[in-house]
């Protein structure tokens, strides 16, 4: 009978290991499903000024799984010390760009036509509005401040 007790102990150890593994796996799958159901906010991973086209390019990344739709963009220009241009805003320029989960897209923020090129110290605030499928009627926004540094 001693051997049977030994086999029960050995089987119990294996059973605990398998139970832990299966439980952790199932919990992880549930946690992942819960996280994937939450739409993420897009983040601006890079911002550059292209002098030739007189536009600021934002690269937006969707860190979540849910797809987002970028609705429109607003550009607010604030002049620095060197600039003679006056402050202005270009509101609600339509975009209509789809941003699937885990991907990034480049958004071109065109500055006002016939305006001066950006000088160091000028600040461009770009606001991108977006929607996600969980609240189709609501519009969210992300604003990124871009300041042209010296020597660029």
């Amino acid at each position, binding site marked *: *009978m001693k*051997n*049977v007790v*030994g*086999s*029960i102990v*050995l*089987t119990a150890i*294996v*059973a605990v290991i*398998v139970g832990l*593994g*299966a439980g952790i*796996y*199932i919990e992880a*799958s*549930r946690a*992942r*499903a819960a996280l994937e159901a939450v739409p993420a906010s897009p983040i601006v991973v890079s911002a550059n000024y292209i002098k030739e086209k007189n536009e600021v390019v934002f690269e937006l990344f969707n860190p979540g799984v849910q797809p987002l739709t970028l609705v429109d963009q607003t550009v607010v220009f604030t002049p620095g010390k060197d600039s003679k241009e006056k402050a202005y805003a270009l509101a609600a320029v339509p975009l209509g760009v789809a941003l699937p989960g885990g991907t990034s897209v480049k958004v071109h923020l065109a500055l006002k036509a016939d305006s001066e090129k950006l000088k160091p110290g000028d600040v461009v605030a770009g606001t991108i509005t977006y929607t996600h499928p969980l609240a189709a009627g609501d519009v969210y926004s992300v604003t990124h401040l871009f300041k042209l540094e010296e020597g660029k």
Partner: protein
Amino acid sequence: MKKALAWIWFLLLAALLFFGATFLAAKATPEELAFFLGLFGFFLLANPLIFGYAGLLNFLGDAARGQARAETAYKALGTPIELQDEKAALTLALLWFNQLVPYRYAYYGFFLLLLLVALAPQLAGPVFGWGGVLIGLMWGAAVPTVVVFGLELAAGWQLAGLLQAEKAA
């Protein structure tokens, strides 16, 4: 009265199982469904082994007390041979244990195949999607495998102990 109560209990249990399984399937992630598929699929595959080793353990327990009924073993083995020996119980148990070896080999072979198919893609880095579902199948299949492993171990050790006692006597 007692029969009616038993029926009510049975219907209640059936309804609970039905709704439990329905809600589980409706709310489950694909990985969980894969886990249950692996669990039930491999339980079906392990059926002859589980019942075989459980029956053999019962038979061995009776044999240890000297109360083994040879008819049970003849039924399991499906053999027309009848042993008239007084040590027939042990011989029959040995035959029974060896009869289950091909089933065990096939079962562990299928499990090993699933293990390799599920784990090999993970070597190149964690794979989601199909890789994750295959791993769910593997964890589900691991549960009946533990049952088979435990029963086989217990039956084998008890058989070995009885054989040793027989040799010493």
